[in-house]
């Protein structure tokens, strides 16, 4: 996309992406001010989405079905509000569309819906589907000998679904180095993940299945850029990023919450925290 930037350009790029992430959060918070919303998990992955949509993914918003695109699958489909925000900001549809969340005949949906929303390739919402679809997509790209890549964002609670581990095994077996999984490790599902069903040692699990693993701070935009720009981490292996995040990041009073809808005062407070 861009050449290797100098340090100053690099700093500008990071600042720009941080601003995009902030903007995604502002849009999500506004959606949560109008309707029920899986706000916590939408906010925790905002930095990841900003980097993907404004730095990493090769896309054409005027032609969402372009065969040269990188594929993005939001396996934790309930967090679609921040994806909708990123897609709108990237020009797939007007930002005003975001004000119609859950309304009659909206183009956006409460869970990622490929049949309604331009820019979404796979309908999700039932947890534990996305990674297998990502494996299939990556295999198809290999068949075509094309350079497209597949990025799948997963929830941590979602990893309790056994289907994920079937996909994890298959991706390593088929040496899918064009597949990147990103785990939004926010440590909560509807309750605390390690209490409900322990995932740790999570990085070891992926590594033992044959993936190349990096663990990063999922709110450190520079780290996300460095990490995602370096995929595949190893030739011949799928890459997974375990991104440690905070559920509800950016709005202190909903941290760790799964769903949150804001009343007027909360909306004002949340926007204030985000500098909007």
């Amino acid at each position, binding site marked *: 996309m861009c050449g290797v930037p100098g340090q100053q350009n690099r700093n500008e790029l990071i600042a720009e992406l941080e601003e995009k992430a902030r903007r995604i959060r502002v849009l999500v918070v506004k959606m949560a001010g109008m309707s029920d919303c899986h706000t916590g998990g939408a906010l925790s992955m905002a930095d990841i989405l900003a980097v993907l949509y404004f730095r990493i993914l090769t896309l054409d918003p005027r032609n969402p079905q372009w065969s040269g695109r990188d594929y993005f699958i939001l396996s934790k*489909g309930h967090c679609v509000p921040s994806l909708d925000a990123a897609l709108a900001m990237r020009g797939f549809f007007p930002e005003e569309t975001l004000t119609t969340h859950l309304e009659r*005949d909206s183009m956006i949906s*409460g869970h990622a819906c490929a049949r309604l929303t331009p820019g979404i390739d796979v309908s999700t919402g039932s947890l534990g589907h996305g990674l297998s679809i990502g494996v299939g997509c990556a295999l198809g790209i290999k068949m075509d000998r094309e350079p497209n890549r597949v990025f799948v964002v997963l929830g941590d609670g979602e990893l309790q679904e056994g289907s994920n581990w079937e996909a994890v095994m298959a991706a390593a077996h088929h040496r899918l180095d064009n597949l990147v999984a990103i785990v939004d490790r926010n440590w909560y599902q509807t309750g605390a993940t390690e209490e409900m069903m322990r995932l740790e040692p999570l990085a070891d699990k992926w590594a033992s299945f044959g993936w190349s693993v990096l663990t990063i701070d999922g709110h450190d935009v520079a780290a996300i850029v460095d990490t995602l720009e370096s995929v595949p981490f190893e030739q011949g292996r799928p890459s997974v990023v375990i991104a440690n995040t905070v559920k509800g990041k950016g709005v202190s009073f909903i941290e760790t919450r799964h769903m949150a809808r804001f009343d007027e005062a909360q909306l004002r407070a949340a926007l204030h925290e985000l500098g909007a």
Partner: protein
Amino acid sequence: MAKPFARVLLELADADPRVCAVSCDCRGFIAPLAEQFPQRAIEIGIAEQNLIGIAAGLAVRGKIPFAIGMNPFVTMRCFEQVRTDLGYGARNVKVIGAYGGGVVYGGWGCTHHAIEEMALMRLIPTMTVVMPADAWETEQAVRAAAIREGPFYISLARGAAVVEQPEEARSFELGKAVLLREGDAATIIGVGPTVADALRAGDLLESQGIAARILEMHTVKPIDREAILRAAEETPVIVTIEEHTVIGGLGGAVAEVLAEAGAGTPLKRIGLQDVFAVMSGSQQDLKSRYGITAEAVVKEILHPSGAGAHHKDTKNTKLRGVP
């Protein structure tokens, strides 16, 4: 229905040490049990297949587990576990669809619509399938499930239909339809949340001087053949209404009874006509777009459509003269 369910679960567990629960990230449904009997309330995380397997294992050990997951996921993701480990295995496990079936999730999307749950669960030999309409019926259904040996599915609604009967006048018997209103011009059969639509259709007809019989079919399997055949005999048309595909659910089950008995009574199945409800909007928006409404029921009775419509028109003397 988390509250009435959780209350009765605790009551049952208190009375019988074999009663326990396994939850698939549905804490609200087991919280009171977990407080009183922590060992008998098992959280297994988001893993429906594991949920059913573990419940089957508990039953192997002689327990009476309630396995709780969200309606679409607990009936579809682990269908084979339910079919083979509970059905074929003849296990005394009670599968609970939590948070609501049908299109109660509205614009949250088709992944969360449970529009196949009755059909799927009905397919499994020995499975009892119940969809209560309100809190009172939920409590009765959960108690009945604990007593009845064998696999059992309860689809818990979110919100409640108004059944409009005083509690002391109500009865709940597995496999027995509830006669909500007497009438002879038509029979309307509802299940779960659509009992409200059936009753409203009854009101609309009544305002035109037409008395429809209204049946609530909380037990979809084993279905009340007797009530259906009586309706076929005594009323000239039957309309079923469900927030479910018309294939294999309430409408499907009623059709099977009518056809096999050789009853010529026309049947109209209101529900999703072999389509997904792909749209954003409220539950009500989806129901009206896809024709799952009291108005649709009334229209089918007054101005029948489709094959057999003509036959129905001429046969239904009780409707003569109605525009």
